[in-house]
């Protein structure tokens, strides 16, 4: 079965600290994975995507993600967060029939 799990509903970090948001997937074939961000009362914006190649992919706004086939994971990272990074982050997996399979989202809270 295809699924995406974001185990942390909420993550709180201090401004300037590093960040990791976790994403685990279940998929039998080569996964096509995404991270999207949703700022309050807005639509979703694509941060980055991975299909093949270098397992570390760079995205917008200094975000990066590391794909691990052995761990079935696609964790999002940032070296130093800013207050403007406060948002909800969604991990998604390309499924069949024009569908994306979504994680439940992680709300990122930045402490001043």
């Amino acid at each position: 079965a295809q699924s995406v799990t974001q185990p942390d509903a909420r993550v709180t970090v201090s401004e300037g600290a590093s960040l990791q948001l976790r994403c685990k997937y279940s998929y039998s074939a080569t996964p096509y994975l995404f991270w999207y961000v949703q700022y309050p009362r807005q639509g979703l914006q694509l941060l980055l995507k991975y299909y093949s190649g270098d397992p570390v992919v760079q995205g917008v706004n200094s975000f990066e993600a590391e794909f691990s086939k052995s761990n079935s994971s696609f964790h999002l990272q940032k070296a130093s967060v800013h207050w403007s990074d406060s948002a909800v982050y969604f991990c998604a997996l390309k499924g069949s029939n024009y569908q994306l399979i979504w994680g439940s989202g992680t709300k990122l809270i930045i402490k001043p």
Partner: protein
Amino acid sequence: AQTIHQWPVAEIKAVGSPLSLGCTIKGKSSPNLYWYWQATGGTLQQLFYSITVGQVESVVQLNLSASRPKDDQFILSTEKLLLSHSGFYLCAWSPTGGYQDTQYFGPGTRLLVL
């Protein structure tokens, strides 16, 4: 560059009343189009997708229907709203629909049903 516009920005409607939400994509011919619903604080639920004019596939209906009357337009509607229809409706587009396809989202329409 492609732009995606959704209308209206927000609606407050009565239970049992009709609804029509719209989505327009400019700058891309023959896009694949998608409707999503998001409960407050929740994840996304895909409702419909369309790969060509006049053709719409249902993923989860939720007593809603969708139509694609033009290449660049996608409409979500119902004749009778339920309280459970409240939430955030997102339209998305993608270039091809192939496996390496990527979906891009509009700004959304917020719906409150009372």
